[in-house]
């Protein structure tokens, strides 16, 4: 999810500069620094840097995957969207009840086993191994890079806005500080640092969400009270599709449901699990963590709309103010501090995953696609982590609308390029490398072209049709069509060990 939610100022800065809020944020930064220092001492190889030495436990995996899945959007942009669009905004996260188990069946076991059998460290590695195709590996790495840099830029901007609002640093310095803190532990400790800070950040987010939901119910007089206040003045807000047409809400459900299988920051983490048989508990742990962390997403937007509906509060100037206004007005300042630490945690946990994935694409995947190998992947991984971070910070200084554009198509681009070749490809022996390459190219070209045309206002899609949904459907159909046309080559493109991984 994009962090473009914070392109408008997050909250009145003066209201955020309370000792308790700043104190909690400083405690958070200290904890992250300590975890980063610990992890950097344990990072001795490229395998440690990119897949945490394949040594993490199932609880860490599940919480870290949740933390990197739910960016700051879950705490600020999401509640803001619920406040403005009603129930329809919940369709973005509604499929989470299904996607974690789906991901376990479709990806987790195969990625983990393929990683062990081949010593793989990146998501494009899996595509390259599955189809015995450096071209497919390289093309998917290009798609990842395009989306990763945009994601990083929009998250740095969002983090910079929060840091500026809390510490009064000014936006430019806030962006640089956000980058430097995240970079310091990611470049030193790689994904090992990232995954353990994700664990801490995930715990912060979950505690913050559950605590805030308690105050939501208390402030709104329970869910009944919230619904009564809203339905008294607005008959559509709490309708099944909210303020959206049914087609738009359902389209969100589809994109974020099937598209969840193409998110590299989650798929990549399956390589890191120490014991693959512990995957048995992954859907249960991940679903529980996600359900608890999404309570804030749903609750805050609804209660703020109820407060406005019953006249207790004036209408918000910006929908994205819903969470800051609620926590500052209805919770103790320590809880507000926890929530803002949670927002920073969300942004940083998403960014560090993308730093690592982007660095791996340049250091590992693109050279392999060109038939070369980088001598010291650990050193170059660190160097490219720094270079990518600097590039993202420069992009984050561009006008807000441009940064929002860069961040907004990331999820759709990952989905359209990776779902067919990775999720279907690892489960269907009839898939071919030609189908994989055609579908990745289709997803990449369609998403970039249509998003750019829409950004430049060259056309508007009809209500209910999303660019990400259209690109995803077409890339899947192209994958099937081209694989069908070239099916005679499928068996020859499958190595014996990969076949075994696909059969178990």
């Amino acid at each position: 999810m994009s962090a473009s939610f914070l392109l408008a100022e997050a909250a009145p800065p003066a209201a955020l500069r309370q000792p308790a809020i700043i104190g909690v944020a400083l405690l958070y930064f200290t904890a992250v620094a300590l975890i980063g220092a610990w992890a950097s001492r344990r990072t001795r190889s490229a395998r440690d840097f990119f897949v945490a030495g394949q040594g993490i436990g199932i609880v860490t995996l599940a919480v870290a995957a949740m933390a990197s899945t739910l960016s700051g959007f879950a705490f600020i942009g999401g509640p803001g969207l619920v406040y403005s669009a009603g129930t329809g905004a919940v369709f973005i996260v509604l499929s989470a009840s299904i996607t974690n188990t789906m991901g376990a069946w479709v990806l987790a076991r195969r990625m983990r086993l393929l990683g062990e059998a081949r010593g793989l460290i990146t998501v494009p590695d899996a595509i390259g191994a599955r189809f015995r195709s450096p071209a497919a590996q390289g093309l998917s790495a290009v798609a990842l890079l395009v989306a990763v840099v945009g994601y990083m830029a929009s998250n740095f901007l969002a983090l910079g806005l929060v840091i500026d609002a809390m510490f009064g640093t000014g936006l430019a310095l806030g962006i640089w500080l956000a980058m430097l803190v995240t970079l310091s532990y990611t470049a030193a400790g790689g994904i090992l640092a990232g995954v353990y800070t994700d664990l801490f950040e995930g715990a912060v987010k979950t505690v913050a969400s559950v605590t805030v939901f308690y105050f939501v119910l208390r402030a709104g007089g329970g869910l009944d009270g919230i619904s009564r206040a809203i339905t008294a003045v607005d008959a559509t807000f709490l309708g099944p599709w909210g303020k959206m047409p049914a087609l738009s809400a359902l389209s969100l459900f589809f994109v974020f449901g099937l598209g969840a299988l193409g998110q590299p920051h989650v798929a990549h983490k399956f390589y890191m699990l120490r014991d693959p048989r512990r995957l048995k508990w992954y859907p249960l742990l991940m679903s529980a963590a996600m359900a608890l962390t999404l309570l804030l997403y749903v609750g805050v937007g609804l209660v703020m709309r109820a407060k406005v509906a019953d006249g207790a509060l004036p209408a918000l100037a910006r929908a994205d103010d819903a969470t800051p206004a609620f926590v500052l007005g209805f919770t103790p300042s320590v809880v507000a501090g926890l929530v803002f630490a949670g927002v920073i945690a969300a942004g940083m946990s998403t960014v560090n995953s993308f730093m690592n994935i982007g660095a791996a694409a340049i250091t590992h995947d693109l050279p392999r696609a060109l038939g070369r190998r980088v001598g010291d992947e650990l050193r170059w991984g660190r160097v490219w982590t720094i270079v990518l971070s600097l590039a993202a910070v420069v992009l984050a200084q561009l006008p807000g609308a441009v940064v929002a554009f860069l961040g907004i198509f990331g999820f759709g681009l990952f989905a359209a390029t990776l779902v067919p070749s990775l999720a279907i490809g690892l489960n269907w022996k009839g898939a071919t490398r030609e189908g994989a390459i055609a579908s990745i190219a289709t997803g990449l070209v369609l998403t970039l072209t249509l998003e750019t045309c829409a950004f430049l206002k060259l056309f508007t899609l009809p209500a209910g049709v999303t660019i990400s949904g259209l690109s995803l459907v077409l890339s899947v159909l192209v994958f099937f069509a081209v694989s069908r046309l070239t099916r005679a080559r499928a068996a020859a493109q499958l190595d014996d060990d990969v076949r075994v991984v696909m059969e178990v």
Partner: protein
Amino acid sequence: MTARLPLAALVLSCVAIGGAYALAFLPGGAPPWAAWGLILGSAGALAAMMALGATRNGRLRPVALVACLLTFGVVVIAFGAALLLPADEGPGARLLLGLPLRTAIVLYGVGLVPLLFLPLAYAASFDADTLNEDDLDRVRRAAREREAMRGRRADADAPPGHTP
């Protein structure tokens, strides 16, 4: 049930979604029934992907099959009910667990009900149908054989007198 069925269901689901999108381009927008394309397509795509992932050696075992069918049914019934039931979200709306009836069916039905059975179905079928020690041994043996073959190839390609 063989792997062909999930694949066919996935293609049909994507075609249904593509059809619903195509209808939205008609003058006057999509007809109300176009939403059924997205309902059936989304539910079908998610259930078919799960079934595809849970299929082993071309067979989908009973626990996974039931879980996939239940997921499809729950999503279609919940979204379908929201389309078919009369709107009642105004003043004095009937509430179910704190939400208007149609909204409660969608949010609790799709957002919560699958949580009650999917992770448990996965865990319950894991040892027998997903991954056991024999599977791991098989994968590790295949990996060792591949490495050995690569080693033999490297030896064969090495110049005479060269020690790898």
